[in-house]
């Protein structure tokens, strides 16, 4: 019998602790496949954030480091500048990147650090139990916005791609989603470009991925996928926000 599907060598042979229906597993697999397809696994250093995907340091089959909450872009810059021959990616959630780590991500983008950022936006703090994130939608319920996010008191969500696109620094910015097969394929294409750009010494690339958190959202996995397509991607439109390869032409 022919084996037609298996774990990519870019992921370790470990059971993942993510909840059923969580989007992290899909994005992990994409990155794991790309480490092999681009033949970069043996020269890659990955950064695991603080949050659900803190365990990414056990899952990606490459050298890994686990820095303080939100500081991934600074640690990435340190590794990349110290060892330019390494491929460096920072895997971060929305609490990590869009809340406590806003200064680090903005300045890494402004300096056009030659790193790849994988930004998981699931509109909630997953690990700590479903608190409001900077990306939580207006009216959306969380354990710290139990009556729904009231924008008069709790402000508006952060749109990271749009915000970073206002800077001259970044080379490539795209928002994707992993709610449908078609979108998963698009996400892989975007991430492949983001890693290839680093190989080509182009500079800062960030791929934002709208990702399901059924547990944090109080939904079934199927409902969560539907919610991304119908609600979340209406507030966070998918698409390319910066592509300097096109601007140059």
């Amino acid at each position, binding site marked *: 019998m022919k084996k037609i599907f298996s774990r990519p060598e870019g992921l*370790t042979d470990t059971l993942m602790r993510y909840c059923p229906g969580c989007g992290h597993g899909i994005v992990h697999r994409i990155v794991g496949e790309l480490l092999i397809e681009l033949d970069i*696994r*043996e*020269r*890659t*250093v990955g950064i*695991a954030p603080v949050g659900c995907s*803190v365990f990414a*340091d*056990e899952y990606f*089959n*490459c*050298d*890994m*480091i*686990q*820095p*303080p909450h939100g*500081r991934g872009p*600074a*640690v*990435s*810059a*340190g*590794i*990349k*500048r*110290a*060892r330019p*021959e*390494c*491929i460096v990616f920072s895997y971060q959630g929305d609490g990590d990147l869009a809340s406590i780590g806003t*200064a*680090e991500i*903005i*300045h890494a983008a402004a*300096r056009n650090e030659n790193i790849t950022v994988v930004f998981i936006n699931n509109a909630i703090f997953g690990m700590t139990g479903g608190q409001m994130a900077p990306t939580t939608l207006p009216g959306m319920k969380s354990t710290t916005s139990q009556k729904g996010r009231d924008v008069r008191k709790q402000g508006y969500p952060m749109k990271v791609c749009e915000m970073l696109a206002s800077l001259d620094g970044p080379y490539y910015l795209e928002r994707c989603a992993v709610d449908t097969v078609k979108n998963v394929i698009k996400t892989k294409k975007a991430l492949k470009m983001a890693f290839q750009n680093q190989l080509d010494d182009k500079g800062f690339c960030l791929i934002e991925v709208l990702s399901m958190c059924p547990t944090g959202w109080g939904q079934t996995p199927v409902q969560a996928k539907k919610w991304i397509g119908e609600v979340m991607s209406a507030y966070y439109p998918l698409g390319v926000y910066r592509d300097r390869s096109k601007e140059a032409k």
Partner: protein
Amino acid sequence: MAEKKLMYGNHAIVEGVIAAGCRFFAGYPITPQNEIPESMSVRMVDEGGVFIQTESEIAAINMLFGAAAAGKRAMTSSSSPGISLMQEGISYIAGADIPVLVVNIVRGGPGLGNIAPAQSDYYQSTRGGGHGDYFTITLAPNSAQDLYEFPKLAFELAEKYRNPALILADGLLGQMMEAVEFSFEPIDPKSLPEKEWALCGCKGRERRVVRSYDLKQGRLEELNLRRAEKYTTIRKDEQRFKDEYCDDADLVVIAYGTSSRIASAAVRMARQKGLKVGLLRPITLWPFPTDVLADMSKRIENFLVVEMSCGQMIDDVKLATECRSNIHFHGRPGGGVPIPSEILEKIEAVLGGAR
């Protein structure tokens, strides 16, 4: 004889760091250490190294975390408020057993304080500084020559024990010009051995993970106990100090850094007056030179601790001497700098009272 040059303390650090084979600097402007990043921005680039002016001290310490985890000698410098911001990163770095060098050109505090020289960050430097069970190796220079030589020593100790190292100086040492002898052969970074724990891609080996967390029950306790053994070894083997006129002394002044320079003048003035006074200058603040003090306390009745603070190192003196001797104190906090005559007055008061 090696080449000698008149230079600012802050510039001596830059040359010492480069001579120590370090080619990575990340930092954020703050007075009174700005000559360090300014000079680094030229010298590091000249030497083919990395210079990054960061968005904050938080980013700076985390860039060090990355560069040092990648196996390179990396350093930052700042002054008190900036060092406070770095404590999160220093705790993670200590928890991940990564060697880095942090230079603190201390200024008056708390808060924004002022920009005058101070020694009020002693507790922060010698008690870990951030959260969790850890210590940082802390060296206290008292001359531009030390500022040139200590970066090399700090990197060697940091790497030997896989632990962050601090150089605790102050605005006076940083801003003062003195002759510096380039006393050692500069280290070629390429000659430094690759670290067996460095993150550099897993070609031909198992992948490596650098982290400070371990959620599995009992394992963090084990890790911390192992690190505690390391600290015991450092405490046993790495105590450094200098003493002057201590052999026949009735009173020993204890001071480090700038205070020790001033106290040394006071001790010589006292000797000229026929008073049997000595000086003990701790060079490592952590590990504190407890052994020599414990020994001295068996024969010396009076110690005078001089600090540019309300009194922080005095606690370590009391612990080391186990309160066998009388511990007196003269402190100038908030950017105040003592002059030799006021220390001499204190010495005379103590010895007069003792008679």
